[in-house]
């Protein structure tokens, strides 16, 4: 080529030299499983909806969220957020407040009236769901989105299950619960309330193609406690149910709650709100060993609930309880000490867990019952083909979120079963570890804590205790996400490559490697903050 005076080398003529041939390893973009997504019992794609929310696209973020879970506003209040326990950011400063952003999105959706259109064509299949708790509602939602005709029957006069008759309204206001259930109703799910199902076989004979059982665990466990005739002993689930119905059960001035789970905490806090001078929790083990969520224990203490750890109730009489002090043995089990004391108490509320009422499957011999719960296969199906079950009535953790997850999983399997197919779950990619990340790049930004009503003031009313984030704090919180294992377009790879071998495709489109020139140095892998690039050996 003819070159101008003093020009000896053609501009960028080095492009003829394909240095990619030097490579023994090549970089590859990947999408790994973020720890939060992996830990969510409802299988939410947390990283994805946080990413979407980060630029203020809240509706899009909400829509990404509800692909897995129809209840973000409820979740944002009652979920114990195992996602945050494992959040990678927890190792840098504090876990991302995933749950509070979820609540923000959920509340915004209610405020804006975002609805969920059913776009799938009708399949012609009819599915019956028994129980309108979170498990049944979630299944109904997912089945409806797939185009099935769904009917829910519930014994109660209003839907919600334990979200309504267990969880008190100072934690889950009813307008929120109602709004998220109404959205499911608006999708065309048929609700048949005041409709207790005693015999599943009869229900099937009504012409349903598949049935999902989600009746929860409604019966309060009883422990044998010797008691005088005048002793006032109540059951926690019934107390909470009455309060939810607007009744005020007679508890007296001094209330003792027996048990260490969340139900015990809720009853004690409710007793305070009903005007009890003193509400005390008696539990046979220690605070550390109590199954209740620690934040809730803390909130109860702040509200003035008294805690008596390592104690059992030996005898109940009118106005007085006999308490025995316990001691943990080397294995951590509580053992009696023979030391007793008297405790003044106008009532004793038992919160010792719940059992499943299995009468409705009594005449279905194929449905296997083990240890008081219904046994299901990995596809959530009982021993009887076409009858599925989930939530509190099957062996699993008893939480709203687990129920929602079961509902989703059951819906997918019911759908496949109806179509005579098998539901194949997409393989789960490797879970991101903290060492995959390059935390240098994340600015130090501690968690925006949700404001709470002050202890004494809140103990006297049923107002919601934990307040939401406002837009700016929610956005701030979303932006703390480190996007574990998924590219968030920080341009680091595009910048740090000494060989200019990363092609930027433009906003939202990500990047590609130019393997003609990539020498395989691996700097892009080391400097990717989110661990979204790996090195793989070059085929020789």
């Amino acid at each position, binding site marked *: 080529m003819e070159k101008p005076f003093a020009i000896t080398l053609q501009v960028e003529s080095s492009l003829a030299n394909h240095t990619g041939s030097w490579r023994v390893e090549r970089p590859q973009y990947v999408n790994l499983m973020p720890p939060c997504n992996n830990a969510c019992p409802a299988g939410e794609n947390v990283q994805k909806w946080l990413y979407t929310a980060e630029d203020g696209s809240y509706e899009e973020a909400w829509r990404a969220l509800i692909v897995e879970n129809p209840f973000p506003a409820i979740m944002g209040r009652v979920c114990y957020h195992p996602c945050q326990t494992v959040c990678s950011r927890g190792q840098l400063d504090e876990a991302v407040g995933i749950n509070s952003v979820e609540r923000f999105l959920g509340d915004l959706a209610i405020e804006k009236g975002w609805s969920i259109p059913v776009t799938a064509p009708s399949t012609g299949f009819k599915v019956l769901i028994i129980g309108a708790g979170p498990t049944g509602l979630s299944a109904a939602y997912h089945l409806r989105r797939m185009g099935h005709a769904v009917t829910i029957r519930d014994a109660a006069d209003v839907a919600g299950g334990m979200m309504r008759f267990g969880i008190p309204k100072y934690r889950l206001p009813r307008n929120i619960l109602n709004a998220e259930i109404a959205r499911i109703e608006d999708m065309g799910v048929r609700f048949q309330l005041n409709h207790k199902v005693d015999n599943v076989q009869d229900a099937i004979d009504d012409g349903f193609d598949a049935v999902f059982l989600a009746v929860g665990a409604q019966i309060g466990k009883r422990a044998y406690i010797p008691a005088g005739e005048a002793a006032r002993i109540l059951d926690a689930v019934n107390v909470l149910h009455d309060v939810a119905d607007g009744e005020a059960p007679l508890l007296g001035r001094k209330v003792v709650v027996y048990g260490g789970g969340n139900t015990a905490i809720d009853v004690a806090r409710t007793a305070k709100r009903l005007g009890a001078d003193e509400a005390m929790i008696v539990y046979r083990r220690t605070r550390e060993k109590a199954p209740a969520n620690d934040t809730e224990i803390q909130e109860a203490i702040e509200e003035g609930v008294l805690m008596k750890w390592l104690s059992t109730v030996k005898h109940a009489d009118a106005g007085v309880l006999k308490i025995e002090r316990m001691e943990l043995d080397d294995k951590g089990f509580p053992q009696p000490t023979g030391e007793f004391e008297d405790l003044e108490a106008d009532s004793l509320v038992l919160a010792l867990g719940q059992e499943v009422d299995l009468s409705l499957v009594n005449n279905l011999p194929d449905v296997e019952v083990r240890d008081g719960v219904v046994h299901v296969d990995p596809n959530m199906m009982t021993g009887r083909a076409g009858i599925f079950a989930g939530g509190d009535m099957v062996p699993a953790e008893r939480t709203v979120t687990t129920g929602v997850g079961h509902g989703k999983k059951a819906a997918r399997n019911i759908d496949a079963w109806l179509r005579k197919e098998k539901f194949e779950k997409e393989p789960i990619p490797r879970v991101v570890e903290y060492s995959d990340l390059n935390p240098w790049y994340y600015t130090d930004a501690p968690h925006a804590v949700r404001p709470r009503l002050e202890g004494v003031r809140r103990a006297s009313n049923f107002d919601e205790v934990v307040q939401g984030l406002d837009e700016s704090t929610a956005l701030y919180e979303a932006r703390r996400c480190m996007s574990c294992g998924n590219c968030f377009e920080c341009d680091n790879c595009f910048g740090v490559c000494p060989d200019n071998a990363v092609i930027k495709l433009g906003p939202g489109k990500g990047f590609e490697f130019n393997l003609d020139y990539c020498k395989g140095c691996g*700097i892009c892998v080391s400097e990717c903050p989110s661990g979204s690039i790996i090195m793989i050996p070059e085929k020789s």
Partner: protein
Amino acid sequence: MSTTPVKFYQVGSFAVGNRLLPAAAGSVQSDMERTNALTSGHRACQGCGEALGARYAMDAAMRAANDKVIAVNATGCLEVFSTPYPESSWRIAWLHSLFGNAPAVATGVAAALRAKGRTEVRVIGQGGDGATVDIGFGPLSGMFERNDDVLYICYDNEAYMNTGVQRSGATPAAARTATTQAVGPEPGNVFGQGKNVPRIAMAHEIPYVATATVADLRDLEAKVARAMEFRGARYLHVLVPCPLGWGSQSCDTVKIARLATQSGLFPVFEAERGEVVSSTPIRQRVMVEEYLKLQGRYSHLFSPKRRDDVIDRLQAAADRNIKRYNLMPEEAGDL
């Protein structure tokens, strides 16, 4: 209620880009239309810090000077790997002369432009540490002394890499090179010798002197842009790790540069007319050992016998920098 202003961005300005920032606030390197002054197909080693640093600096200079830049290059890796006849990786006007005379040639180019009334075209001289602190040092000092209108950039990989890793006046104490073997009671390069050219440049009281590394792109780009705001002689000293000469993994190039700054061994600062005007604080302090142990050129400090005496001397040098350049302003009172 604890609130923080909404202006917070996930990765702040530490990463190259940030999709939440308006494009105008992005770095030059995040721009799909960046010059790519030094483009693909060059023959630098895998993970070469010098190739990276040169592209960072030149792309920033091109943006600052509206694409009107002439670069004069000394002999060294940068020249050899970018222009093996008949190829060139440069996408800017680029001139090569000799190992020892780049500052003088740059001075000449600037003089020619001035004579032609083309002072909107900016001149950059560039070279390795050998070219800068050793063989080209006389012309460089003259260029400073005359305050010629040139930005000179030294890509410091702390030895003569192109000819096989010989010691230069910028080789740090205790480092092994081909000419400072790890033998004898004081293995590697000796303590107490060598030149600190940023400080020598400052002594010339030229308008602008700064240091930077390939680990902090925003800082490097800002310094190039700032340098281009001045006329007269300016000097930028960029630390560029060299996997071959330092015996480090190619993937660790940026990390090692980062550790150099976070240990205090390489202070990042800027000076105007001989006075330090700012320094980049250490964000996550590390002991020098973290930096040293990733590099084969210091392996004799860890095996066969750990040389705490030598490591302590290097740590003392880092501590001195921290004090001297106020690299940990929050702890300054306790030091």
